[in-house]
């Protein structure tokens, strides 16, 4: 009887471990899509959620990865033109986020800009690594 209880307790604990806050992951390896991408250039930090765009909005990979973005995380920020001016002209996120297909990049700044605090909350305890 005691042994069964212990096993039950252990199983419950492990299930809880992977369903609550412990279950959240930002890493691409954990998903079929790219996971959360957190940009740090030119400002720290901007979040892009694959989960939202792929799972909720149900986009296909090609919708973005054919023309807009390379399928390599954080590559776009190395180009040096990943700024608001560029988005305003319709590049990158600005292709859809122009006010008609989705909210304009000129509005709701902190919806994507999670800032230094958001960065630290998600990745603060690890090295800045480009994976």
């Amino acid at each position, binding site marked *: 009887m005691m042994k069964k209880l212990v096993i039950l307790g252990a199983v419950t604990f492990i299930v809880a471990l992977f369903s609550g806050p412990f279950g959240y992951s930002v890493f691409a390896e954990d998903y079929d899509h790219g996971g959360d991408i957190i940009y740090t250039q030119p*400002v*720290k930090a901007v979040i892009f959620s694959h989960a939202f765009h792929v799972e909720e909005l149900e986009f296909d990979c090609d919708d973005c990865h054919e023309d807009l973005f390379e399928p390599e995380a954080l590559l776009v920020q190395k180009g040096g033109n990943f700024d608001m001016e560029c988005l305003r002209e319709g590049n990158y996120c600005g292709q859809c986020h122009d006010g008609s297909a989705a*909210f304009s990049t000129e509005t*709701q*700044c*902190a*919806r994507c*800009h*999670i*800032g*230094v*605090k*958001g960065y630290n909350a998600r990745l603060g305890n690890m090295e800045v690594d480009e994976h």
Partner: protein
Amino acid sequence: MKQKINFDRLRKDKMKKVSAMERREFLKLGFVITGVFAGGTVLSMVSNVKKVFASPEEFSKQYPYKPHYGMVIRQGRCIDCERCLEACTTTNHVPPYGFRTTILEKVVPDAVGRKREFIPVLCNQCNDAPCVRACPTRASYKDKKNGIVMIAYEKCIGCKACMLACPYNARYFNEDRHSADKCDFCYESRLSMGEELTACADICPAGVRNFGDISDPDSDVYQMIHQIEQTVWVMRAEAGTKPNVFYMK
């Protein structure tokens, strides 16, 4: 029947023979004085609550600073890049345990659309500053020329009453200077050297911090806060501090 209180007799008789009538008269006198005082207080409260300035000219007369430095913070644009914090700590030699400005974060998970906002907070250089009032040595004082609340570091005794008094939590204790310290609109480091802007206003990439002379009708800050279509607010208006830092979307 009114009977006058005979004070001479009272003095001589040492109050043994105060008649009931005299006691009554004394009480009546007391009530009259209290009533007059209370009436006066009510009258002054009703007629003079929160004096509102009808015009910029009246405001300038009450607070005749030239230039009257102020800041307008466009809060909706803040993205917490924290470049202002870096610029401030470098320019003003702020120690790691201290702060002259902070960015607050507010997260509302149930909000529609944007779920977080960032709010920069700094010394409001209040026109009616509680820290100036609280300081026992006058180390904290309001500059008569430009309205900045300054700190005379050599006078500070480290009692920290100013830190308690500030409703904006804008002050910290600097161990190296042995004094309270806070934002002085970069007066010591920049404005007195001929620079026009504070370090934070200079470096902000999103146009959040706008610094200038709020008494000059040609300045950006004046024009921003005098538009009737825009909502402009201040932090903790109920504290009655009359701050010089304004917030807009």
